[in-house]
């Protein structure tokens, strides 16, 4: 399939209009979704490596009983940072990276609907992570787990800055996730290409859309929990202090009513990645598209009704526990629908086992293991034995590595050729897959039995003679094999930049719109705005699927400024032309102001907070200062 061609002067003019300014200004002011997406991906992989290094340290400590390589305080800080880093600064942001890069390309748009908000979302993500890791410089990293149960986090039991870093960094990060989520929702309902109706959206887009709604609804619970914690710690508010009429369980309800939806936030788009590469590598459309799309949305909604299964042991009434137990089982059904859609797509397709497909197949197997162990924990009577043991550690890693990391790897092998224009090495890719798959199995499967043997979570050491020794050694070996797999991926990435084959626009002969652009795509994405007529615009007329006709070579060019179509929410009929914003430094400075406020809050320095707040208002004023943005109605 050829990419769209326009005369050279037109493409040059489009490039001039859309490209980011060179130099430092451009680096800080870019609002291009592709630049922002790449930054999200790179930054989240850096956090993955940090979190992985922390995990390696933990596994060395636990490889043998009664080890004293690390002090308990060091272990507790590192296991806490491992969880916080992976869950908050890797798992969701890496998917935001793919979504930021891919959404406009998949939807046939020239940028996200709110490019400046997009930049803000990235800068706040980065700076909140920097803020979090300054805790390492002062040796006071959060040490009460990523779940940070009160009242252990109160000053009486946690006098250092550790948990202040936690509360402030997460509040800071939720600015990023919330702004990003709103941007995705607006983009979806406003700036799809004409004809990209909701029944033609890639499943990955359904995934990110669903999780964006989840973020908007769930993030305030975490923010509230963290703000109350900060008030308790700094102003003696006693929200979580039972001795003064507060409630220790208030934290858990707030945290998990955020935390469980968050689990789906870090897996649904990942499942979407697999759903979207399945057709490409099975040479046929996805089986049951509508079922999978609806399963995605219903998982997101049901995800808000299961949080109490983290709290079965807290002494809640049996009726309440049973309700949440039932809800946690029901949520299995949409996942089963997705799994059987993938199996059926493979069964009725002709699978081509390139690296992305290998990762996708491994993903399905790990997904099912993680799902089945999830059902075990949903059964509340059984969960009372399983909870807070290594069984749960196994389960959550099958979910977070199996469903997130494996899908992300599949996504990298699938989409990096689009992003960099270079193919990754297939042989290294297969080595990469098998190291990760085998390392994962060796490393994480024995955790199930360790849990059943009674090994509690979050212990910095254990006594010899409890029957846990050899399995812990296995786990450590497996973890290092897995880490080697990640290292091979990184090597493969750099190899591809130096010596990879040119990818060309569509190296996999894939069906969706992002493959209609050159690799890497030009700053304006599509020279001609595509008019979409089917779910698989690049496969039209080649499969037995009855479809409409997409127009990729005859759509309008829109080259009078940064213009893109605004379309109607459901059917994507064009109803206006939107003038998109130019490069701007305000999102960067706004994030910087929040960083200053955060340090003011951390160190209790009123003057620092005041400077930050002042700068914040200046930035907001600058951002919204009128500069004659034109919105011309369609047809004008």
């Amino acid at each position: 399939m050829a990419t769209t061609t326009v005369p050279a002067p037109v493409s040059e003019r489009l490039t001039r209009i859309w490209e980011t300014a060179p130099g430092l200004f451009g680096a800080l002011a870019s609002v291009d979704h592709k630049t922002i997406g790449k930054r999200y991906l790179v930054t989240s992989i850096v956090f993955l490596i940090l979190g992985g290094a922390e995990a390696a340290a933990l596994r060395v400590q636990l490889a043998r009983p009664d080890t004293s390589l690390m002090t308990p305080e060091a272990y507790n800080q590192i296991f806490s940072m491992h969880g916080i880093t992976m869950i908050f600064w890797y798992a969701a942001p890496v998917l935001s990276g793919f979504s930021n890069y891919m959404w406009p390309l998949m939807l046939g748009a020239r940028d996200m609907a709110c490019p400046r908000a997009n930049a803000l979302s990235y800068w706040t993500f980065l700076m909140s992570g920097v803020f979090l890791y300054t805790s390492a410089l002062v040796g006071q990293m959060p040490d009460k787990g990523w779940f940070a149960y009160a009242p252990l986090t109160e000053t009486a039991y946690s006098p250092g800055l550790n948990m202040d870093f936690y509360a402030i960094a997460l509040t800071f990060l939720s600015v990023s996730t919330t702004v990003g989520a709103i941007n995705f929702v607006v983009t979806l309902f406003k700036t799809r290409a004409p004809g990209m109706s909701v029944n033609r959206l890639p499943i990955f887009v359904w995934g990110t859309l669903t999780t964006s709604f989840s973020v908007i609804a769930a993030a305030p619970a975490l923010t509230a929990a963290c703000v109350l914690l900060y008030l308790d710690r700094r102003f003696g508010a006693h929200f979580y202090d039972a001795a003064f009429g507060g409630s220790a369980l208030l934290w858990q309800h707030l945290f998990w009513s955020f935390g469980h939806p968050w689990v789906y936030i870090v897996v649904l788009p990942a499942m979407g990645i697999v759903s979207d590469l399945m057709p490409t590598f099975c040479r046929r459309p996805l089986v049951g598209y509508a079922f999978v799309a609806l399963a995605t949305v219903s998982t997101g909604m049901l995800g808000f009704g299961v949080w109490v299964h983290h709290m079965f042991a807290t002494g809640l009434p049996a009726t309440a526990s049973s309700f949440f137990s039932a809800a946690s089982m029901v949520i299995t059904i949409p996942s089963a629908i997705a799994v059987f859609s993938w199996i059926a797509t493979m069964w009725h397709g002709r699978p081509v086992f390139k690296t992305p497909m290998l990762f996708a197949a491994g993903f399905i197997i790990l997904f099912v293991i993680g799902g089945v162990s999830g059902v075990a924990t949903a059964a509340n009577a059984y969960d009372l034995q399983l909870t807070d043991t290594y069984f749960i550690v196994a389960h959550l890693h099958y979910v977070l590595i199996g469903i997130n990391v494996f899908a992300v790897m599949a996504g990298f092998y699938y989409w990096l050729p689009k992003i960099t224009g270079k193919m990754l090495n297939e042989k290294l890719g297969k080595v990469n897959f098998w190291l990760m798959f085998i390392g994962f199995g060796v490393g994480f499967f024995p955790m199930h039995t360790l849990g059943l043997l009674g090994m509690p979570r979050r212990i910095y050491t254990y006594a010899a003679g409890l029957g846990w020794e050899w399995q812990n050694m296995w786990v450590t070996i497996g973890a290092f094999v897995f880490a080697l797999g990640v290292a091979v991926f990184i090597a493969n990435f750099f190899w591809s930049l130096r010596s990879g084959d040119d990818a060309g626009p569509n190296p996999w002969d894939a069906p969706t719109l992002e493959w209609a652009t050159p690799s890497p795509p030009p700053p304006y994405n599509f020279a001609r705005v595509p008019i979409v007529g089917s779910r698989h615009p690049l496969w039209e007329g080649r499969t037995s699927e009855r479809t409409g006709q997409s127009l990729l070579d005859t759509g309008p060019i829109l080259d009078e400024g940064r213009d893109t179509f605004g379309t109607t929410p459901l059917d994507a009929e064009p109803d206006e032309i939107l003038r998109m914003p130019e490069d701007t430094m305000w999102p960067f400075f706004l994030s910087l102001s929040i960083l200053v406020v955060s340090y003011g809050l951390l160190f209790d320095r009123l003057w620092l907070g005041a400077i930050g707040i002042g700068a914040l208002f200046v930035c907001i004023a600058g951002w919204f200062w009128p500069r004659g943005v034109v919105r011309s109605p369609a047809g004008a």
Partner: protein
Amino acid sequence: MSVAVVLAITALVIAGGWRRRHDNARSSGGGNAGFVDQSANELRWIVVGGMIVPAVILTLTFAFTIVTENATAAPPASAAMTIEIIGHRWWWEVKYSGDSAGPVTANEVHVPVGKPIRLELTSADVIHSFWIPQLAGKTDVIPGQRNIAWIQADAPGVYRGACTEYCGQQHANMAAFVVAQSPADFAQWLEHQRAVVTGVAPGPAAAGFAVFQASACASCHTIRGTSASGRIGPDLTHLASRATIAGGTLANNRGNLAGWIANPQTIKPGNVMPAIPLRSRDLQALLAYLETLQ
């Protein structure tokens, strides 16, 4: 069942991948080659595999869960006795509270075999969780809340458990033991634990008691029958009758006890007990005294 589901789906993934796999050499060549037609019955996979089968399995699982929960939620007979367990950082205080003599011990819950025992769980500081895997599931121990659990040991023996809610620096060293004894042995044990200390033999033990009184020990520990009535650390009235010290961290013998008193922060960093600087002679006397607390 879980294993069966995993194996079945793994088999389907491998079979589905293998069945009509593409020869890699001629893949992704573009053109019409290689596409597969949709078939009429492919949605059956989703309806049967994705909806009907899991719905049946899950309904059965849930029914089984409810039945199990019902069976484990309350003892079959009314509880023989109530034991109060208080979580501390990082040890368990055990009180036989229905007993007017108020025996108190630490980290060891002695129970009579074959009798349902009611546990009342409270916390002195942060959230802990009480778990003896062979006897019952976990019940969290939450400040400001009194949670009820019950256990019944059907065979005599020592059942090891641990705190399973992360409770800070020494969460790893907070073991609990249920010691199940025949009713006669248990009655004898309880009778013994009710006794208070009535005087001290002359010699090293008496000197040791003087050290105990004079140093910081007495401000945190209680020895019933003496003026030592501190409430921060474990009750030491029958210290020597226990199998372990320091929340199950160390076996209870003279050497370990000496090490623990001399340097608790090396053995269990961060724990609440400070190192008490004692001259060697005083330490030996103190140990001699503690050994009399049978």
